[in-house]
């Protein structure tokens, strides 16, 4: 314990080593998650890219070869491809509009204080938890079916002819199904956001003479602007991948009336076994999703700064 050990001999403390060991611990904890996700994110992506430049059909695996951008060329000149793009955009936008509008309405309604409100909320939220194929089938068979479905019966009651939804209005039917599934999602997020709205703001507006409608427009909606933006972002990512509902109801038809990009790729890959074309379409789908994500990230970021 001698204090007289010469100070001059001391080297500068090995500060680097210490921080390195701490960082190593942090990395060891993180690494499984990161490695696993990195593999999941990059390897299939690169493979898709590679396949998209090849001519490859699983039925004729020996006839494989590099063909550059030919798959893309074919794809972009196919009318069914552009139909799929349009169908995808139509469906996503329509569902977004429906779910947000309904979500705002429902959340306003559910934000009220009434007896049994928790039960009512559960009932509104329930559709989100239903298996997608089941949701599709409920609507297809029990409700939409022109002969035995409930809606057909109701229409007959008021003297209107029964509608074969999936034959004449397949897209609308699909949009109704998907909107029914996803409105709870929007409602939940907006409801949570509403509950963080200070009720005193609304009381102040009331004192200022604003009627209910105006209170909603000028105070509630601006408060919801950011959550709505976030909901749009999250929903559109998931909506681009809607699959089971299409498979169970229309299988993309009639014709390709309800074939979205996702369904098109499915047909190409697992029904036609045309790997090259499916991969090219897959790459385009990823690019589309990234464009959507990018624009929405920007909109959200702008809202976040506000």
């Amino acid at each position: 314990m001698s204090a007289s050990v010469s100070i001059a001999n001391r080297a500068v403390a090995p500060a680097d080593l210490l921080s390195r060991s701490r960082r190593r611990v942090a990395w060891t904890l993180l690494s499984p998650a990161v490695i696993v996700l990195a593999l999941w994110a990059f390897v299939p992506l690169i493979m898709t890219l590679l396949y998209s430049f090849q001519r490859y059909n699983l039925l004729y695996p020996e006839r494989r070869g590099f063909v550059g951008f030919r798959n893309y060329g074919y794809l972009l000149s196919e009318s069914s491809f552009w139909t799929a793009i349009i169908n995808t955009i139509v469906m996503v936008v329509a569902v977004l509009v429906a779910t947000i509008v309904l979500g705002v309405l429902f959340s306003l309604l559910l934000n009220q204080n009434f007896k049994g409100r928790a039960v009512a909320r559960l009932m509104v939220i329930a559709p989100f938890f239903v298996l997608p194929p089941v949701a599709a089938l409920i609507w297809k068979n029990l409700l939409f079916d022109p002969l035995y479905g409930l809606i057909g019966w109701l229409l007959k009651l008021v003297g209107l002819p029964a509608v074969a939804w999936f034959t004449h209005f397949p897209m609308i039917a699909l949009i109704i199904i998907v909107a029914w599934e996803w409105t709870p999602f929007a409602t939940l997020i907006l409801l949570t956001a509403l509950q963080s709205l200070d009720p005193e703001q609304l009381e102040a507006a009331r004192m200022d003479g604003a009627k209910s409608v105006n209170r909603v427009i000028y105070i509630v909606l601006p408060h919801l602007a950011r959550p709505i933006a976030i909901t749009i972002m999250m929903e559109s990512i998931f909506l681009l991948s809607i699959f089971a509902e299409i498979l169970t109801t229309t299988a993309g038809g009639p014709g390709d009336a309800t074939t979205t990009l996702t369904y098109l790729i499915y047909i190409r890959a697992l029904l036609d076994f045309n790997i090259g074309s499916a991969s090219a379409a897959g790459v385009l789908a990823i690019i589309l999703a990234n464009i959507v994500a990018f624009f929405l990230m920007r909109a959200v970021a702008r809202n976040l700064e506000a």
Partner: protein
Amino acid sequence: MRDQRASLPGAALAWIVAFLMFFPILWMLMTAFKTEAGAIANPPLIIFRPVLESFAAALSQSGYVLFAENSIVISLVSTVLAIAIAFPAAYSMAFQPGRRTQDMLVWMLSTKMLPPVGVLVPIYIIARDTGLLDTRTALVIVDMLMNLPIVVWMLFSFFRDIPKDILEAAQMDGAGPRRQMIYLLLPLASPGIASAALLAIILSWNEAFWSINLTASHAGTLAAYIARYSAPEGLFWAKLSAASVLAVAPILIFGSLAQRRLVRGLTAGAVK
């Protein structure tokens, strides 16, 4: 708007909306208790004598029980795996943040934004070449990967609520990261862990895309079962409804028991 009792028309409107949204599920539930003839009766029966024959028929349908088992096993195993991997990662990000932690979190979430269809081809081919096509293992791995970002995100936001100095006190007491996780985080964050697990189970149970495309007759989940065997095989709607009710009931019950927790976890950070 919050503390006063809602007006009568307001509450009535809310109930109408709730009823309309819930009605399809209700109708399915009712149909499940009808006979096949009753299911397609015209006009549709609202009053009827409930029977269980459709449930019996659904359960005895070949493959149903197997697929139900698959759903249970795959959901549980993939969730346990996801939590096992996410736990240390969330710990590291919450309590040993570095310059890149924020970016790391955003990157993890971004992997969820990849449309699954974009990688359908390679995943299918990998599964085929490794002999994992139509196995539970394949789905466990895929589900775990799909859910990992969300589980990490939820655990991370719950961990952040734990004051850091409790862990520092443990550090002074001689507990390294591993023991801190076991003795402190596990008990203190258990509601958060439960929420994350619940969400992962629900997402995995409902997962339809990979279930349908990577499985055939052995490893499919209930989602695949209903999607595949619902093709126009006739008017066996009561049976189908019964099968569907059995398939969605567990999730509906889970979800209703824990909805508040789930909402908290999901919206943490998304909504201030």
